[in-house]
């Protein structure tokens, strides 16, 4: 930094000469632009998005390659259970972790650094910030996650085709399942963002996200089987899983229903976050 004091000219004589009505003001569009700038200007965001891509595509390719090489020696039972679509989309489960962490960080990072005070002083109505963040994050993650799911599918099927065990893109329900895989990542990310906005603390946000997605599902086993079976399909993780399958089985939701349930969770936490955002002190 230069040691000399900068010129003390008036910061902007022109701006002051204008009447207040001609000046700029807070708009939802402006807040969207601002949130976009915030998103891309952080290294941690870029890395988390990259991690989501790498995991979704990478683990799908890995699973497909392993299954293709194992196929000749695989037992008849394992062969009967083999699902080429699920195998190529297996990476989504790991992508969920990366995008969930990012969703939490998008909000809690503002609280931990104090940025939230600058943000809310600029937009004192507060809610446009939450809508802006959700919209920008939703669009950006969709723009990355949906193509990632398609890349994972096509690369995976190409690997599986060596053993003639692939599933065709034209097979009924396949395009929807791939789209559902990408969309589930988007909804999970928004769900995590809502959790972060409610908890306002990075550690608490990530811990509760991981608990809901990865710890609660196996814990259901301690409940009576009938109760567990009734709840199980409606867990966020399983609702997301249902989105990337063709049709549904005894204890899973149909893809559309899964999408509705997961979107409902995301909308609910963001709704709670919105109410709290207006009511609580920053």
């Amino acid at each position: 930094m230069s040691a000399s004091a900068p010129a003390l000219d008036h910061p902007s004589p022109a701006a002051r000469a204008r009447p207040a009505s001609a000046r700029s003001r807070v708009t939802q569009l402006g807040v969207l632009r601002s949130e976009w700038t915030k998103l891309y200007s952080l290294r941690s965001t870029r890395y988390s998005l990259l991690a989501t891509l790498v995991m979704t595509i990478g683990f799908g390719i890995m699973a497909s390659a392993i299954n293709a090489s194992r196929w000749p020696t695989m037992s008849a039972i394992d062969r009967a259970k083999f699902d080429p679509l699920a195998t190529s989309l297996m990476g989504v489960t790991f992508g969920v972790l990366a995008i969930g962490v990012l969703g939490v960080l998008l909000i809690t990072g503002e609280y931990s650094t104090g940025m939230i005070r600058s943000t809310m002083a600029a937009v004192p109505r507060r809610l446009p910030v939450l809508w802006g963040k959700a919209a920008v994050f939703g669009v950006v993650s969709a723009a990355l996650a949906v193509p990632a799911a398609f890349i994972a599918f096509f690369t995976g099927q190409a690997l599986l085709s060596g053993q003639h065990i692939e599933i065709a893109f034209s097979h009924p329900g396949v395009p929807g399942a791939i789209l559902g895989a990408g969309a589930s990542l988007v909804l999970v990310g928004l769900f995590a963002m809502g959790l972060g906005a409610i908890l306002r603390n990075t550690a608490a946000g990530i811990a509760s996200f991981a608990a809901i997605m990865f710890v609660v599902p196996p814990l259901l086993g301690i409940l009576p089987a009938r109760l567990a079976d009734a709840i199980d399909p409606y867990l966020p993780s399983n609702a997301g899983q249902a989105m990337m399958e063709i049709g549904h089985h005894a204890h899973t939701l149909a893809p559309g229903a899964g999408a509705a349930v997961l979107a409902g969770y995301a909308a609910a936490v963001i709704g709670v976050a919105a109410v709290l955002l207006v009511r609580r002190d920053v």
Partner: protein
Amino acid sequence: MIEATHLTKRYGEKTAVDDLSFTVKPGIVTGFLGPNGSGKSTTMRLILGLDAPTGGQVTVAGKAYRDFPAPLHEVGVLLEARSVHTGRSAYHHLLALAQTHGIPRSRVNELISLVGLDEVARKRVGQFSLGMGQRLGIAAALLGDPEVLILDEPINGLDPEGIRWIRDLLRRLAAEGRTILLSSHLMSEMSLTADQLIIIGRGRLIRDVGLQAFVDEHSTNRVRVRAPDAGRLREVILGPEVRVSSDEPGVLVVEGLTAEQIGVAAAREGLILHELTPEKTSLEAAFMELTHDAAEYRAVIPAQDLPVATDRQERIAA
């Protein structure tokens, strides 16, 4: 103009701001003064609507902050606690704030130059020194060219050059008719910058007074005189308006007479003087005395044992 009326904020059991009423007038620098923990930062958060008051209200130009369609054009803020994401560059921080209002990029660059951050604008704020962080905060505050500026401890972490820069900038901004509220826990700084003082302690208003009035009130001119025959000198100079005290043998502390008057009186009587020194009670001492009872954290030394804080060399400015 900022107006607080019966402003109160409680966090659970603790009352941070207690029935505080004051007016910050335009065109001058108002110093917001109080010991650490006295409620200055909380009051500023209340002004900005970051926290909701438990009671009372505060308005800027007659409006609640929240009701401004373009708050950055109305009020510029520098908060004491850093309010910047450390992973973002100074440029992107300012750009993100500007975009909420549709303020153009050119204005962002203009501000970066104004505060002298050109060379580091693309560096992550986490790598900034405290002084650079303060300059970034000033840039953010000036982004919307606001009529009202609220600056919490802007001098913190600045080098002498930076401190002078802030003083000049604030003077200039005030001269343009803007309303400036400046908090500090340092009286010495206020005496160089502020025109009006709002002094608080434990969330309560202690004084709302013009700086000059405060100076006049607290700079009782005292003269320290050392003379071998102090007793005789005392009799010679005593009068209805004159107070003489002594804290060590052979030394008198005289109030109500100038050094010249004492010198003339001594010469007339043929008395020898070894020392004749004008003393001024420092504003810092006056401020400490005023807020002593209200200071939340203080050493447990009883007040009467504290050394008398006078500074002979300090010349009170303004």
